[in-house]
């Protein structure tokens, strides 16, 4: 078990996540090829690229759903390569899924309770827990449907519920996999506002997104993947002007 004092190794404004030379192959297909990824504490990083570029595979490697064939992942100064998803979750990396994975017969509030009770290395007493759970529901605008079942929510709310469950773990790093997909323009605007607010709360965010408006608006830095390779990296301005990126992904 890691001890608390070890966490002092990393300092503020440093890299919260350092992944180096990550490789993942599925049979003959190289999904992620020698990718280096550094995430600075407090930033909102966008991950874009065509379908099949390896974005979700990268998320799966970072969150432990898949084991990298080679490469090292360090989080808050510790090597987390090869840890199981629940171990990584407890160390402070929370995620959502491309196709929502909510618990259909579980109430909204229980989703958040689960995130709170299991996603942290240590949690407060019962009153403390209930207070924080309610706070998260308020923040996510889910308080009015706290007793509804997961399956009874509309897609936009199911996506918010996934984020709420992730937030309840009090993550240092949040991986959002296509939060905007399938949302109406109004819902999308609300979701963008939400991501910004989470960023202001000091949560480091990496988001996979196809909605360019959202990416350009929210992210301080963008990484472009294509065929498992890192194609480009930079500010939104740099990315929109990058010739290769335009060719491969953005289009003229």
């Amino acid at each position, binding site marked *: 078990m890691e001890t608390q004092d070890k966490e002092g190794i990393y300092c503020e404004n440093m890299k919260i996540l350092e992944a180096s030379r990550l490789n993942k192959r599925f049979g003959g297909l190289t999904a992620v090829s020698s990718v280096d990824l550094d995430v600075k504490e407090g930033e909102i990083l966008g991950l874009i690229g065509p379908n099949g570029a390896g974005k979700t595979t990268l998320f799966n490697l970072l969150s432990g759903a898949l084991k990298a064939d080679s490469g090292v992942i360090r989080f808050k100064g510790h090597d987390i390569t090869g840890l199981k998803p629940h171990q990584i979750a407890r160390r402070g990396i*929370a995620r959502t899924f491309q196709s929502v994975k909510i618990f259909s017969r579980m109430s909204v509030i229980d989703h958040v*309770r689960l995130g709170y009770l299991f996603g942290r290395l240590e949690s407060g007493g019962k009153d403390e827990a209930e207070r924080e759970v309610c706070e998260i529901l308020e923040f996510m605008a889910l308080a009015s449907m706290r007793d509804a079942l997961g399956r009874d929510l509309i897609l936009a709310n199911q996506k918010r519920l996934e984020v709420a469950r992730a937030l309840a773990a009090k993550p240092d790093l949040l991986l959002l996999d296509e939060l905007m997909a399938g949302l109406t323009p109004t819902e999308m605007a609300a979701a963008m506002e939400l991501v910004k607010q989470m960023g202001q709360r000091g949560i480091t965010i990496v988001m996979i997104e196809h909605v360019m408006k959202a990416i350009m608006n929210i992210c301080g830095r963008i990484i472009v993947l294509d065929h498992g390779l890192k194609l480009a990296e930079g500010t939104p301005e740099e990315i929109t002007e990058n010739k290769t990126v335009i060719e491969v992904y953005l289009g003229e």
Partner: protein
Amino acid sequence: MKTAGNKYGSFIALITLLALLVGVPGYMSSYTVILITNILMYVVLTLSWAIFSAPTGYISLASAAFFGTGVYASALLSSSLPLPVVIVIGGSASFTLAFLVGSLTLRLKGMYFTMFTFGLVELVRNSLHWWEVNITGTVGRIILSADNTAIFYSMVGIFVSVLLVSYLIKRSKFGLALESIGESEEAADHSGVNVTRVKAVTFAVSAFFMGAAGATMSMRWTYIDPTTAFNIQFSFMPVLMAIFGGTGHLYAPIAGATVFSLLEEMLTTKFPYYYMLIFGLIMLAVIRFMPHGLEGVIEKWRHRIKRESIVRI
């Protein structure tokens, strides 16, 4: 969420049931005592089956393996140890077996897991049979039986324990984790739930009570061999009874097992030749007309009266 009045009601119902049960040996015939012991055995098996299989959706057919392990633990020890100790050891042996097997095989999903658990019963039964024939040189064992009243009270004790444990699990953080596993293992895992361990521990806890029930029943049978101890019927009955009763509320498996075993008792005595046939027809009718079992009917009726949202224990 449950209203206070409702909780109060279930509590009173339970106390009344227990009070009636405790009095049974005093004013009932020994036939009735044995009948109720038998019913309680099925109630215990169904409740413990539901501890693991109801929330997770992993359909286990291993009950007979754990029940039989309890039976044999009792056969080996009952002559030298007091009944409660034998029961705890029988339960613990099943717990250990389930934990080991569960840690290795709960990666299997759906049908594969079910087939494996079915195979486990055969594996344990045949291994034991081989052992008895080749090593100890026996086929069956004669057990120093306890009297029916002692067996009855032991079964009541196990029933109360399994009910209490089911209730506590449902209300706890652990129960929440189990439910999440049944919905999406991936999401549970990424939320910090140690999925493999939660599944293995729960599987083992449910096996503990099956083993305890086996250790108790063993003393009623006086003669056992691997075929009776590991009868696959002990695997199928809890599943059928859970389907018959339902698993959403704690009363449902109890009701299912009780009605089902009474039915079995009635049919075997009245129609010894046709009872399996009638049984099958009843089961078909239940699945066709009562898809949520007795529970579905009872809940529908409760809602008509109270017009409240669905409540859970």
